[in-house]
């Protein structure tokens, strides 16, 4: 049940999503990845991808234009 962080602040699409996809492969089932982003499009496409694959996703707006996406590896 480990928790990992991925800093994608200042990065434009599609970099946050590619990094998230790569990182999720390394996680074990039950682990959570927190992706830090400030790219408004990534705030949409990262959760969209994660839900499509079937992971649990939560988004938190931590500051103006800054989000943390919690992705739990469920399978």
């Amino acid at each position, binding site marked *: 049940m480990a928790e990992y962080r991925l800093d994608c*602040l*200042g*990065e434009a699409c599609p*970099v946050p999503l590619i990094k998230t996809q790569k990182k999720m492969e390394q996680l074990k089932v039950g682990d959570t990845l927190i992706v830090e982003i*400030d790219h*408004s499009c990534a705030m949409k496409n990262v959760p969209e991808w994660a839900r499509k694959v079937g992971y649990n996703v939560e988004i938190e*707006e931590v*500051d*103006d*234009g800054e989000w943390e996406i919690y992705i739990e590896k469920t399978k």
Partner: protein
Amino acid sequence: MNFTNSPLYKKIFKDAWSYWTGAILLAILNTAMLAISGKAWGITTTFAYWGAWISKLFGADVSGWDFFQIEANAKALSQSAFTNTGSVQNIGIILGALLATLLASQFKIKKLKSYKQVIAAALGGLLMGYGARIAFGCNIGAFFSGVASMSLHGWIYAVFIFLGAWIGSKLLVRYFMT
């Protein structure tokens, strides 16, 4: 402010809209633009005007170039950033996006993370600028408006923009990922 807690504010101004909503509204706007102004939506020709006006500020005369012999372009040279329709439209796009961001309380200066982003932005900008001139438009003018106008150039553009995006994706992953 209390209205920022209302569900209607949240739905319209805070949350992102669906891609479908965007698609429908952009199609309506582009059609309305063609109906009202007689021209479909385009962006990049104005960038050449911006370049020409900036050159003029530095004393460089580009009015002799073949590109500026075309009637519409020659006319644009005599105008300014606030009296040329395309320029006013592009400034509007920037400020419209800023408006949407502020009303959602999501504006933030996104700083650079690595020097690679500078190289990628510079190289990408040059390629797009040049490419749009010889392809008669960008994703908007040549692709969106071109295909919708049932023009052959729009369809050729569509095929090769995908090829370019594929090459660009490989380059991005190989050289420009931070």
